[in-house]
């Protein structure tokens, strides 16, 4: 029997370390330490209900486990074979408990390829990876396939880059393979930077060997002997597990010289990023690795021609690599049957925002937004109304009700005015103000622009300022036209992908929620009730009993009124902190 405990960053933050320790202690108390193994795995994806403990082989899926639950799990489940009911997942609709994750809505529609080992194996143990066909693909490539055969297989699979651009991976490899040089490089882009996205981190934390194996396969295909993983220093757990994995792979002869007894040589080193979003752009990433300022340069030359230290370099994202071994093992024809015509395979998404099941999911391309948000994601929190979903992070756009039945793939999302990006998906409900949302993303891009080109450096700042004015009620109708023009010019003239996409949140909200902008500008109102400057707090005379509770809690003395008399809020003094509303027991205060 195995007790699988989630060791992803989220669950660890909720003390899953202590769960492991306690489970082990309890097993020892019962003398079961040799029969039952406690394994700390990578992320299960169902972060909303973490920490997760899964019992194998019966697949019992315990949610929101606390360290003190360890005793009961061991005493009841392990010793007596009885499930601990209170820790099982309850289906919010049917109100029934579901013990096997396979039957949970969250997992039903998922196909886990990139995440295949996350939540199954101990990422710090190479044997467990090997037990699940690990390094079989590399072995096959080195002993049975020519480099071009591997490239052909990847091309045929239809795999496209998961970092955001969606460039066909096989073609990228082919270009790098064709450029002759005394030294070539394989780079893994693990500089995940979208707000709310943690796909790459989870893969590296849960299945680091998948990426190492794929990089070696890429090295073999492109005739590169050196691999570099550019990872943000803010991912300490992923770094730790990668280091362990690299050491183990070297020890087993899966990295280094004469891999699988062939004359193929490949080794991998880590390079740390300081967390600049722009370093996810491949030329910036390469400059950063070279010790230069992390800023982009004009392409061409592409990294496949002149990359790290001027040598041909293949750069792929973590999730792209994670797909490679499976494609080799199961074949391009297995892979390209999953997905849509032009987007093959699956995509990992990080669900966040106002959604019931926050977490990490992997679905086939072509799954609709509705399926993702309402079936897998369990719908909107607190029964609120769905308003929009932002895909592609700060580079993407928001999609609305009318896009819910659009099958998700690279091209459909672009057509709908957003983009796949790396897979962040932030769900918004009726309480979210779309102008503020656009402002939030612009705030991020202003912060993260490298400053090299003027439209991104200054233009984004001006966009932000204008949005800020609109949320303060200082906007004018002509500003909306300016917003649109500035956005278009920034997209049209910026040097790299950051500036070329940063106005997308503005443009897509202008397209989809124009009325909301107009309300801010002409009525000086925020329909979602989020923009503080546009709100007024007033007391409904009929409901006010004059209890004085609101006046006593008001930090600025904006509320006046005699005991048992109707109170009054002075809008000039009120700072809109909301303390009075929270205190009022008579629903006598409203925000307009």
């Amino acid at each position, binding site marked *: 029997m195995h007790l699988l405990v989630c060791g992803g960053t989220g669950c660890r933050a909720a003390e899953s370390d202590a769960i492991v320790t306690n489970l082990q202690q309890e097993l020892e108390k019962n003398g079961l330490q040799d029969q039952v193994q406690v394994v700390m795995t990578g992320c299960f994806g169902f972060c909303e209900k973490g920490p997760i403990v899964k019992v194998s082989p019966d697949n019992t899926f315990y949610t929101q486990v606390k360290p003190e639950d360890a005793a009961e799990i061991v005493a009841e489940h392990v010793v007596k074979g009885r499930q601990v009911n209170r820790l099982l997942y309850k289906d919010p609709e049917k109100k029934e408990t579901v013990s096997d994750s396979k039957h949970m809505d969250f997992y039903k529609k998922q196909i886990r390829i990139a995440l295949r080992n996350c939540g199954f194996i101990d990422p710090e143990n190479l044997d467990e990876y090997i037990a699940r066909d690990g390094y079989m693909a590399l072995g096959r490539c080195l002993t049975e396939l020519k480099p071009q055969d591997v490239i052909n297989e990847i091309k045929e699979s239809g795999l496209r880059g998961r970092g955001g651009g969606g460039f066909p991976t096989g073609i990228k490899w082919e270009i790098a393979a064709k450029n002759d040089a005394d030294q070539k490089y394989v780079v893994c882009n693990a500089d995940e930077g979208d707000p709310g996205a943690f796909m790459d981190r989870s893969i590296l934390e849960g299945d680091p060997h998948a990426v190492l194996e794929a990089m070696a396969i890429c090295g073999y295909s492109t005739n590169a002997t050196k691999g570099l993983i550019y990872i943000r220093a803010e991912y300490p757990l992923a770094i730790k597990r990668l280091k362990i994995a690299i050491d183990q792979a070297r020890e087993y002869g899966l990295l280094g010289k004469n891999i699988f007894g062939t004359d193929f040589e490949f080794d991998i080193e880590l390079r740390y990023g300081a967390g*600049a979003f*722009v370093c996810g752009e491949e030329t910036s990433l390469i400059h950063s690795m070279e010790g230069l*300022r992390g*800023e982009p*340069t*004009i392409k*061409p030359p592409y990294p496949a021609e002149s990359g790290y230290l001027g040598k041909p370099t293949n750069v792929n994202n973590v999730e792209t690599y994670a797909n490679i071994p499976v494609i080799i093992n199961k074949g391009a024809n297995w892979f390209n049957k999953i997905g849509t015509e032009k987007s093959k395979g699956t995509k990992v998404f990080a669900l966040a925002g106002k959604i019931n099941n926050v977490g990490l999911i992997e679905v086939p391309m072509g799954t609709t937004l509705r399926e993702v948000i309402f079936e897998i994601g369990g719908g909107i929190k607190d029964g609120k109304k769905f308003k929009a979903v932002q895909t592609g992070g700060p580079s993407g756009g928001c999609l609305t009700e009318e896009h819910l039945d659009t099958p998700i793939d690279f091209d459909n999302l672009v057509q709908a005015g957003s983009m796949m990006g790396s897979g962040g998906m932030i769900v918004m409900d009726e309480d979210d103000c779309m102008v503020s949302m656009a402002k939030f993303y612009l705030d991020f891009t*202003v*912060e*993260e*622009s*490298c*400053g*090299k*080109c*003027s*439209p*991104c*450096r*200054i*233009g*984004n*700042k*001006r966009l932000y*300022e*204008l949005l800020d*004015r609109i949320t303060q009620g200082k906007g004018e109708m002509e500003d909306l036209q*300016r917003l649109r*023009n*500035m956005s278009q*010019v920034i*997209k*049209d*003239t*910026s*040097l790299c992908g950051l500036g*070329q996409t940063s106005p997308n949140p503005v443009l897509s909200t202008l397209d989809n929620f124009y009325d909301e902008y107009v309300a801010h500008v002409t009525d000086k109102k925020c329909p979602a009730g989020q923009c503080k400057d546009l709100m007024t707090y007033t007391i409904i005379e009929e409901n006010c009993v004059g209890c004085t509770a609101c006046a006593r809690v008001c930090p600025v003395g904006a509320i006046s009124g005699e005991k048992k008399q109707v109170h009054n809020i002075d809008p000039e003094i009120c700072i809109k902190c909301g303390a009075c509303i929270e205190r009022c027991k008579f629903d006598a205060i409203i925000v307009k």
Partner: protein
Amino acid sequence: MDKVKLTIDNKQIEVEKGTTIYQAAKKLDIEIPVLCYMNLEDLGIENKPGGCRICVVEVEGRNNLAPSCSTEVWEGMVVHTHTMRVINARRTVMEFILSDHPKDCLTCAKSGNCELQDMAVKLGIREIPGQEYAEMSEYKVDFSPSIIRDLDKCIMCRRCEMMCNEFQTVGALSAFHRGFEAAVGPAFEMDLEHSPCTYCGQCVAVCPTGALTEKDHTRDVINALSDPTKKVIVQTAPAVRAALGEEFGMEPGTSVTGQMVSALRRLGFDYVFDTDFAADLTIMEEGTELLDRLTKHLNGDKEVKLPILTSCCPAWVQFFEHNFPEMKDVPSSARSPQQMFGAIAKTYFADKISVKREDLVVVSIMPCLAKKYEAQRDEFKLDGNPDVDFSISTRELAHLIKEANLDLNTLPVEDFDKPLGESSGAGVIFGATGGVIEAATRTAYEIHTNKKLEKLDFEELRGLDGIRSATIDFDGTPINIGIAHGLGNARKLLEDIKAGKSQFHAIEIMSCPGGCIGGGGQPIHHGDSSILKARTKAIYAEDAGKPIRKSHENPYIIKLYEEFLGKPMSEKAHHLLHTAYFDKSKKIEIS
């Protein structure tokens, strides 16, 4: 070379593969506005970060606009350079840039000579939408002895950074901060004064705006000239006369020596002298030092330091003090002409006209910004009184002349005053790369061989290649001469010396492209390298027209030694005309 056919604005053209859209359009006389782009073609100095995005054009089949300065053409490419989409984009981007740029053109040093200002006019900018609530980036102004950095005016063209790092390999300037706060400056935002900056001023020479300017000393000069208790004398460096005319609308390469002299006289200088005189003096001292070291070397002395390196260029002196302090006994100990002039003026000449040192003000007109720093080095002061009081650039002089309502175009040609105004052609060519070593060769040859030189023009030492070398036959003794201009090129020669690989006996080093004619204090060339070539030509023409062309034949130099100094490298000469160098390698401080 492969050829590529393309269409620009409905005109067909065939160009070499690798050509950019901007270059191809230029061949068709289609002018695409550029801002950050700069190309000093003959010197191999190019700046094309593709950062300003003013030069964008529409390329059929491409989603977004392409920066023409850095996008290479391809077969069948169809380009439109001035569609409404392009015009709107350029204007909007320009509005962005200006929205983060101060509007103090009235008092800006670059006003009237500012590429940003010109671009605003060209793109028809009349107002900046949203300026009233646009935040502007703000930085502390950095005042160094030579250069003022006002980063509020930086537009991130990165030209200065490219000059400082790639051409000069000084590494004092690089981009810092991100996004809206990004600007260019020394590491850790330290002041230039605490950085490895050499004050070569090449950053100033290429800055399109007023972000990098010289420290202005014209106010000091006006004050001195207005003070009846002071005698004010002026010296003019050789490269100034070859460029000053440009500020008055003359063709580059017009030599204005005589008009410059009369302008200075009309400004009220009591004596108008020539740094060229001191250049001749430098040759006497440096040439003697070279011959001394050479003779010792030929006699088998293993201790003697060869090659000897010239030491006229103050930025170069700063450079080796910072970067090669272990080699500080290799360069000649001779002071630069500016400082030799100052030392002689405040001793020999002051005595001659019976003026006390503190009542004599020495002003120098220099093509250089490092000279400002050099003039205030402690070694060149006596009891706090500097040998050279104020050093102003060619540009500052032009301002003064214009301010006095004088026009070089209409001023008569006049001669320098005596005795410190007389010079040989050898002194003049100090202004161009290779000139110092050519001047030294003329004198050293004749002294060493006791023979008269038949041909004075050493063409093999001239030119614009970054590193040049020639072997001159000193009557049977081959003397290997090296020349570098640009500190990056100098670094290469120094690394060779350090590694014991240098075959040279003497090396001339100048910091600026083309030598002093391309100095940081010269009229702004705006990336046109033909201007530098024309100035060089003017320098050599002036030399060719001089009756005396060898330093040791300058009668006033001969007289100076007879009356005052004794002989070259005498104790007095050593005291007044030579200096020592310092280890500055550890002087990088973080404030």
